[in-house]
């Protein structure tokens, strides 16, 4: 049998180079490219957008897409350039979803770690709350929050964080429970390491993979939730460049201007798909046990 070229005489494989590892990982290039493009648009929106997204150009209102050179994707009822609004929409999406999901992750991780490690009544108490939050559809909880705090971006962000942390808490707790009784944790306890240190140095590193997978799977859902809340008129003010708001505005011009609603919704769909594909890939890559058949 011919020896593999990377196998040495002792049968020990030298560490793979970064390039080889990337090739073996079979990265999902298309979703990654989509996400990179969206990120690029969000960061450099003011440089690449052909128009100011808030500029009215009433002479050219309700222009269909591809009809003249200056408004590639058409204009809305006040002559705002659709392409520019879509590009700035990427920035808005990032500004609203990123902080809320970070807060959700932090809160969920802390609750999950504490709950899983302390056990007993702390665990039952925290998990009761977590189950109650998980037990209701996010949109209902978000509506309740927005009712009492008022509409606005900040409150939408609070609503998203308040509904999403529970999933992280549940998952992290489960992971902690599976690691908590392993020898290295018990040894650390015998050695007299403080609880805080055990959680931070011994438990937390073991849940990072789960955390990354869950994050990438959740981002799509968060984007959809944010878009729905914007669509319902609970987030940014009308006229602001957010994808959900654009679809809502397009709804008033269903018969005259189909393009106002079509493009923003299509972009949301593509972005969510890209995140879902990436999340599936990450799950397979980091944890082959979870690999689904078919």
């Amino acid at each position, binding site marked *: 049998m011919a020896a593999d070229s990377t196998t040495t005489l002792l049968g020990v494989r030298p560490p793979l180079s970064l390039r080889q590892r990337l090739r073996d990982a079979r990265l999902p290039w298309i979703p990654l490219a989509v996400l990179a493009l969206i990120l690029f648009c969000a960061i450099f929106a003011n440089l690449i957008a052909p128009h100011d997204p808030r500029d009215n150009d009433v002479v050219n209102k309700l222009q269909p897409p591809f009809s003249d050179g200056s408004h590639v994707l058409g204009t809305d009822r006040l002559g705002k350039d659709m392409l520019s609004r879509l590009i700035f929409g990427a920035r808005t999406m990032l500004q609203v979803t990123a902080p809320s999901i970070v807060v959700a992750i932090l809160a969920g991780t802390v609750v999950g770690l504490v709950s899983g490690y302390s056990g007993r009544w702390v665990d039952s108490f925290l998990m*009761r709350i977590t*189950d*109650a939050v998980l*037990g*209701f*559809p996010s*949109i*209902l909880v978000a*509506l*309740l929050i*927005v*009712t*009492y*705090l008022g*509409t606005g971006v900040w409150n939408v962000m609070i609503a998203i964080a308040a509904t999403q942390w529970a999933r992280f808490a549940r998952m992290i707790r489960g992971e902690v429970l599976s690691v908590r009784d392993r020898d290295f944790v018990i040894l650390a306890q015998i050695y007299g390491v403080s609880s805080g240190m055990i959680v931070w140095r011994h438990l937390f590193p073991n849940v990072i993979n789960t955390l990354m997978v869950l994050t990438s799977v959740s981002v*799509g859902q968060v984007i*959809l939730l944010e*878009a*729905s809340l914007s*669509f*319902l*008129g*609970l987030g940014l003010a009308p006229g602001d460049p957010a994808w*959900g708001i654009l*679809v*809502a505005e*397009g*709804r008033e011009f*269903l*018969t005259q201007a*189909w393009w106002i*609603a*079509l493009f*923003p*919704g*299509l972009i*949301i*769909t*593509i972005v*969510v*798909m890209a995140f*879902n594909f990436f999340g599936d890939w990450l799950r397979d890559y980091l944890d082959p046990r979870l690999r*689904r*058949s*078919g």
Partner: protein
Amino acid sequence: MTRYIARRLLEGIVTLIALSFVVFGSVHLTGDPARFLLPISNDHDEAVYEAQKKAYGLDKPFIVQYGNFLVKAVRLDFGNSFTARRPVRDILLERIPATVHLALAGMILAIGIGVPLGIISAVKRDTILDKVCKAFAIFGMAAPQFWVAIMLIILLAGYWGWLPAFGRGDMTGWFPEWSQIPDMIAHLILPAFVLALAVIAAIMRLARSAMLEVLDTDYVKFAQVKGLGDRMVIWKHAARNALIPVITFGGISLAGLLNGSVVVEVVFAWPGVGLMLLEGVLSNNFPQVEGAIMVSGAAYILTALVVDILYGYTDPRVRLN
């Protein structure tokens, strides 16, 4: 089994009480409802304010007010809607049938479309058909409901004019007259499909993988070897066994469909509880929001409870957990 039901029932009641506490508590945390009810011109008239407070029982201690709220909530008495100027209870009783119809229609579509497509996908594995189904599932999980709804309205209701774009037609209440049935179904198709889209996708994937697993078992292979026709093997031997978990999932999704309808009801102007909730949210109409959320929440908890208990009957492992 009795113990399982009792435990599950207790959990349901605890969640319901927690919900009522949150709903009631948030009004008091975020402001003074009595002050909110004042007309703007009378904002500083303390006598009117005090009278208002007394009239609504807002001068009593928190816990007493909460008790009153609970007792009334059981009778669906949430006071008068600020905007409609009539009891929230009446509005709820008008709206609940619409939401229940929509959710049931959604579940019928979810199982009726998802299960056959999933089975076909598994049987015709790796063919074009399978790939089309898979693409549909991926799309169904990623596309925002409100957008799919609008696109379908543009095409099916606007451009081709096949289906009505919004509302329930002249339908009210629970039961249609015979003559209303075709119109009712026509009005239901679009909203129910949009509502069910994500569930259709999920059921399809579930049915496909369950079916693939069963098709690989010995008894199915034996049935084939025995010379039974494909149709017989697939539908009688394989599908029956593969579908138990899928149908259970369909039942669980009913709970989600009952509440996932806010966006769908808004887009299709469907006069249900979800639309009522959003109207309440946008006009700071607290009694209406409280009523809609308590009813939705209770419906959600009850459906989940019933499904869990049924699940306990079909799968003994659940009971012992």
